[in-house]
């Protein structure tokens, strides 16, 4: 059965956001997002981009939730919570209410069965929290890697979960909706979240897994300029081996991914990703990249890299520096005369 046990309500708000998480969500569903929600018995109480109610009508909906008159299944917030200036939150008022989003988040989150941070901003602070952090931005329950944020480290939703951090900038529509659907069905537990509160739906994988450039990675055959097909880690700043996400295992927009398009992983699912300076170049010490694969000993990496570079097939080496496949995998092309016996 795919219906929630009873009418599962959803309230979606935008704090210090760019609206991108909503735009990603609207890509969801073979018959559109609204059909999918209906199919699962999820009732959208209000969403600033799509609902009919505006102004006074919208304020009335929020007031009923705040007073506890309307049961709230999931509170989804996209965007950073802005604490500035000087702790007032006035850099982001919910227009028409005279109150800050900081205030609204704190008022509504305790009413929610589940609280979902949609995107890296609401999860960890995101780009607005980058230095010099002019608006004193945080996530709902994290500031970068630190627990805290707008709701504090001890916040638990009515159902006893901390904030569910569907990070990503923007997150894949699948991450958002699979999490929401699992919540609505009561099938999502603390065990389904990683140490940063991210759904293991995507956080059990590295963005590197399934990358179409993996053969280049294996042989350390690297791209040196953008639009080349080689591995992007050694020179162009790719962090796919250090960032969680199943980006290369599921289709983005019908079949893409950042690394598939040659545009490098910037670790947008990670707390503090915005702190990187020089996102398009790999920082190195003594020719060795500083950021190595998440759980690989450095000595092993260096040794394996040297070995695999010495064994790089010509096809792979050539393709790594080309913007399209220069040489296909022709059978026998790499064989040296007399290297193998014919049968």
């Amino acid at each position: 059965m795919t219906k929630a046990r009873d009418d599962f309500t959803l309230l979606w708000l935008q704090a210090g956001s760019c609206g991108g998480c909503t735009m990603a969500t609207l890509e969801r569903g073979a018959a559109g997002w609204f059909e999918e929600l209906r199919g699962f018995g999820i009732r959208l109480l209000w969403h600033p981009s799509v609902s009919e109610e505006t102004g006074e009508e919208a304020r009335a909906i929020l007031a009923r939730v705040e007073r506890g008159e309307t049961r709230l299944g999931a509170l989804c917030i996209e965007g950073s919570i802005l604490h500035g200036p000087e702790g007032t939150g006035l850099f982001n008022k919910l227009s028409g209410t005279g109150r800050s989003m900081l205030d609204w988040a704190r008022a509504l989150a305790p009413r929610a069965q589940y609280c979902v941070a949609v995107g890296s901003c609401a999860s960890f602070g995101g780009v607005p929290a980058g230095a010099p952090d002019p608006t004193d931005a945080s996530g709902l329950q994290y500031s970068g890697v630190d627990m805290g944020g707008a709701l504090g480290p001890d916040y638990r939703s009515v159902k006893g979960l901390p904030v569910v951090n569907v990070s990503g900038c923007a997150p894949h529509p699948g991450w958002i909706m699979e999490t929401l659907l699992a919540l609505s069905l009561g099938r999502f537990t603390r065990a389904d979240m990683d140490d940063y509160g991210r759904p293991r739906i995507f956080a059990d994988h590295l963005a590197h897994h399934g990358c179409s450039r993996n053969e280049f990675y294996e042989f350390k055959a690297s791209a040196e300029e953008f639009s080349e097909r080689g591995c992007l880690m050694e020179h162009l700043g790719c962090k796919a081996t250090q960032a969680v996400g199943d980006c290369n295992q599921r289709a983005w927009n019908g079949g893409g991914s950042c690394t598939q398009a040659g545009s490098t992983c910037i670790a947008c699912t990670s707390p503090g990703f915005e702190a990187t300076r020089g996102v398009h170049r790999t920082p190195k010490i003594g020719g060795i990249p500083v950021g190595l694969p998440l759980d690989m000993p450095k000595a092993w990496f260096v040794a394996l890299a040297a070995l695999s570079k010495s064994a790089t097939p010509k096809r792979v080496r050539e393709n790594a520096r080309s913007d399209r496949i220069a040489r296909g995998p022709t059978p026998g092309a790499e064989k040296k005369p007399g290297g193998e016996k014919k049968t």
Partner: protein
Amino acid sequence: MSRIVIGPFNRVEGDLEVTLDVENGIVREARVSASLYRGFEQLLLGRPAGDALAIAPRICGICSVSQSLAAAAVLRAAQPIAPAPNGLIATNIAHAAENIADHLTHFYVFFMPDFARAAYAGRPWHEATEARFKAVSGAALREALPARARLLETMGLIAGKWPHSLAFRPGGVTRALALGDEMRLLALIADFRAFLERALFSAPLDAVIGLASARELDRFVEGAGAAGDFATFIRIARDLGLEEMGPGPGLLLTAGAYLGPEGHRFPAGLLDCATALLREPPLSRVEEDVSHAYMRDTAADPARAETLPDMRREGAYSFAKAPRLEGRAVEVGALARQAVAGHPLIRDLLARRGASNVFARIVARVLEIALLTRAMEDWTRALAPREPYCVADAPLADGPFVGFVEAARGTLGHWATFRDGQIERYQIIAPTTWNFSPRDAAGNPGPLEQALAGLAVGEEGATNVAVQHIVRSFDPCMVCTAH
């Protein structure tokens, strides 16, 4: 005189509050406020210049490609490279897809649902409109959203993902398309065209593109295109007099859209609606005024300005600055692009009223959906096999530079000063900063503020749906506005 505050103003992108001073049922003055400030112009300072390609697009999740391209344009202005022609073409395909998606989302998700509201119960068209366009539940959304998602597969192919793609560079795009990719592009554009010709227009694209006057539009609506959603809008618009609603400031600006190897697809220009005088836009004479913004005093020239908030500023009511061209408020958007490009239907609509209006803005946007879908097909066929898609960066020159593009909502400019490869200054003027600017030091209102003044709201006051139509006719993007 009564003062009415409308907010949260939804089905726009981002945070908007509108304050109306109403006297005897007429709006005397309107004040438009952007109620969000995230500080992107501060976030960019001191970073390596190339980081603008990762940070700036995150201003906006609805037009992130436009922000990427403005950043790429200002970076390109500072280095001696010519972009790869294929890169420009692929960029245009992706940019067009984003802009079409914006126009489509605006029409189906933001704008049309207002005609399904209970306020219009009793109008002969209301029942059918409610079934098709009601917010969240309307039947049209079951077609339009999947069509939008399919169109955005363009981004998967060219840019890896959307929103917030990283594939756009000063010298082109980071992925070269192979023959199979081109075929996939053509296939998904064909799918999208089929949706348009079935649902939105109920007619071939060329029939829409070829409309040359308001009279021809009327014939189209009663004839070939009668069954389409566009025709539904036109009939409602005639009934409600949307052509008389929401006049703009009379000047329409575009910096030129879709830069290809042979120049802009839609040219740059500044059109005076009253005189039909068209000239080159004096883009070096853009200034920003902070007299009514929560901002500290700064240089008026965006190349020398800073953005530092000041919540205590006397008389301030918005985080948006007030951009002015030669001291005047101007309107930007699809209407400006097509008016400057000389599309006969759009010129005729403007000539009838001598000013922009709610009706003309929507028609221009929907027309642009047709024009750009056709352009995407042309561009895909113009890609040159075996030619490069990207030219490598060269060292940046020091100094102030500017880059312009056209976002769906209009002219977007990034002004940057680079020093030793780092960002020393960065200022952004987005389309909705133009359209939804607050007053300037001379007291001149911004375009939306002008468009709302004089509106008869009667007894209903703020709940009068016409307010919603006028505001949404600009398709505001508030997250871009103050950024």
